[in-house]
Structure formats: structure tokens, C-alpha cells
């Protein structure tokens, strides 16, 4: 076995110490970390740039369509408002109580020996009330007034639901009036009429509908 003599021991140790110099190693480490950080930053910056490009593309697409969408939204709102307004107005129109047909039916009930002096009516949403004041002449003036009441009940009952025709007052007057050359006694009457503005069949079917709803 050959014998090795290390005559440069001190120099080699110094060289090793120089190689393991912490300052030098630290500087290398710092440079490596710095390089990694820069690389990572560049990678992130690239990603951000890509996102920016994507954003500008979407913004461009949106700016092209935005005006149309805003106009469509506005038009849509206007149309919805208009449709609902028209629906409400139509329902108001349908719910109106029409006095023309009622006056036509009333005129059909008035016989020549009966006179209407005052007709006062008011129409609410669910009830129409009419007060008819007048005079009736005949051998039996009360019977003439009753005939008018019955005719009113019959005529109005054909067109309106829940019709009630009742005398408020009915009294004989002392005076006589001339009807077709004959003096006849006179009675003064006041008739109260109440009715529902709905046609009779609408009211008749209403309970059936509500019963069906309950069944479901």
C-alpha cells in the first residue's frame, strides 16, 4: 500500500472554506430566488395580459349589443306596461253599468195610465239602485202601480241578477185626473229597485265555479 503525504493540507482547507463561504452561497441563493421571482412575475403578467385581451374581446362584443339590449329592455317594459294597462282599462270598460238598456226596459214597462215623475239611479260596483217616483191612474190606481212594479220586476229580472223591486210608498191621492175622457182616481207611488249589474247567468254560475275550486 502506497503512502500519500498531503503537503498542501492548509491550502486545500482554505480552498474548501472559500467554496463554502456563506456570503457567496447566500448571494447565489438570492440570485436564484430573484430569478424565480422574476420568472413567476413574467408568467403572471402574461396571464394578466391574456385576461385583458379576453376582457377587451367581451367588452367589444357587449358594446356592439348593449344599445340593442337597452332598447329591447325599454321596449319590453313599455309593452308590458301597455298590455297590463290595456287589460285593466278593458276590465273597467266591461264592468261599467250601461244605463241605455235599462232605460229601454224601463220605458217598455210604463203603461199609458202610469206616469213617472222622477227617476233617480246610482250605479256602484256591485249594486245598482233606482228610485222611481210617479203617479198611477185607473179605477184601481194601486193595482195599476202594482202592475208597473210587477212588469219592472219581470223585465229587469230578465237582464239583471238579484233584482228586487219594492214599493217604498204607495198612497191614494184625493184628486181625480182625466184619462181618455174619464175621471179616474190617482195613487202616488215610490218604487225602489235594486239589482246586480251582472247578467243573471253570470251570478248563477258563480257558486258552481267556487264549489269546483273548493273541490280541487
Amino acid at each position: 500500500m502506497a503512502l500519500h503525504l498531503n503537503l498542501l493540507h492548509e491550502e486545500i482547507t482554505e480552498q474548501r472554506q472559500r467554496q463554502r463561504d456563506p456570503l457567496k452561497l447566500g448571494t447565489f441563493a438570492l440570485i436564484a430566488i430573484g430569478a424565480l421571482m422574476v420568472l413567476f412575475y413574467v408568467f403572471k403578467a402574461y396571464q394578466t395580459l391574456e385576461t385583458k385581451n379576453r376582457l377587451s374581446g367581451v367588452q367589444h362584443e357587449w358594446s356592439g349589443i348593449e344599445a340593442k339590449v337597452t332598447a329591447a329592455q325599454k321596449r319590453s317594459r313599455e309593452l308590458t306596461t301597455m298590455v297590463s294597462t290595456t287589460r285593466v282599462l278593458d276590465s273597467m270598460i266591461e264592468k261599467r253599468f250601461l244605463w241605455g238598456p235599462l232605460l229601454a226596459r224601463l220605458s217598455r214597462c210604463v203603461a199609458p195610465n202610469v206616469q213617472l215623475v222622477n227617476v233617480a239611479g246610482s250605479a256602484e260596483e256591485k249594486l245598482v239602485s233606482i228610485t222611481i217616483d210617479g203617479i198611477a191612474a185607473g179605477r184601481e190606481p194601486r193595482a195599476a202601480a202594482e202592475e208597473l212594479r210587477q212588469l219592472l220586476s219581470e223585465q229587469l229580472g230578465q237582464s239583471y241578477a238579484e233584482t228586487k223591486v219594492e214599493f217604498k210608498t204607495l198612497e191614494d191621492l184625493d184628486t181625480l185626473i182625466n184619462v181618455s175622457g174619464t175621471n179616474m182616481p190617482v195613487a202616488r207611488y215610490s218604487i225602489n229597485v235594486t239589482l246586480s249589474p251582472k247578467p243573471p247567468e253570470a251570478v248563477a254560475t258563480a257558486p258552481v265555479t267556487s264549489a269546483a275550486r273548493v273541490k280541487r
Partner: protein
Amino acid sequence: MTPKIKLSKDQIQKLALSSIGLIVLVYVYLNFFLGPLNKSRASMEATIADLQQKLGSSKGEMARADSLQREAGTATTRYAALQALAPEGAPIAWFPPRMKAFFANQQIDKAGARLGNSTALKEPELEAWSNYSWLIDLPQADFSTLGNAIAQLENAEPLLSINKINIRILPDQPQFQQVELTAYTVMQKK
């Protein structure tokens, strides 16, 4: 056996300074470089998501508006017709002359109309519309003519509803009646 690293005082100071420098560098890097970059990217991503959602819903919105436009054809015509019932200007300026002309056309002279009041309607859909109350006075009318005229009026003015009616016989002319009507009209605010 690892050799012991002997550090001089100067080297220790340099190492400490380097460590502080490294910490400062990392702090600056994270807070002034990487942080804002990430924040900006996150904000852009959020904007993209928002815009894409808007784009997605806008297509549906436009399709809905188109279909609504087609479906609302009848309602549009009807609405325009109802609007056209009331001309421009204050109702008190044109409604009384219109009533006078209407009843004169129906052989009922001396008709007069005066405004009772105007109120807002309770329905939220009709916030742009008002309810006007009118007192229409017909001092001399024949019953059958009156009946026809009222029927014509109700047909011609769908937004008018007669709320009260009072027909009185004229004492000196029993063939004629004196009539008072309380009518409500719904009109668009102008």
C-alpha cells in the same frame, strides 16, 4: 464530519443585512408587484363573468322583447285607440264642448257639462291615467231620445261610465224631462 464554518463579525453583519434585504425584497415583490397584478386580473375576471352573464341574458331578453312585440299587436292597437279617445289639452277645454255637440247631434239641446273633480286611480297600472268626474246637465230631453242618446254615448265613449242619473219631469212641459248625469271618464294625464 462537516467542517465548522467560522464566521467573522463582519460576515455575520453582512448575513444579517442580506437576510433583512431578502425579507424586504419579498415584501416589495408580493405587495407592489405580484399583489396588484393578481388584483387586477381578478377584477378583470369578475368583469368578464359579469359581461358574459349579461350577454347570455341579453339574448334571451331580446328574444322575449321580439315575441312580446308580436303578441302585443292587438293590445298595442287597442291601447292606441283608447289613447286617441282623449285629444291633446286639458279635459275641461274639450270635454264640455264635445258633450254639447254630442247631445245636440242626438236632438237634445242646451246640454252642459262641468268638471266635478279629478282623482288619481288606485290601480298601479293606471298611474299615468286620471279619473275625471263630470256633471252633465240636460235641461230638456224627451225620454226615448234620452235613452237612445245615453246608449250612443256609452257606445261611443268606452272610458266613460255614468254613475248617477236623475230624470225629473218638467212641471210645465210633461212631455220633457230634465236630466242630470254624473259620469266618470278615465283619461291619460297629458
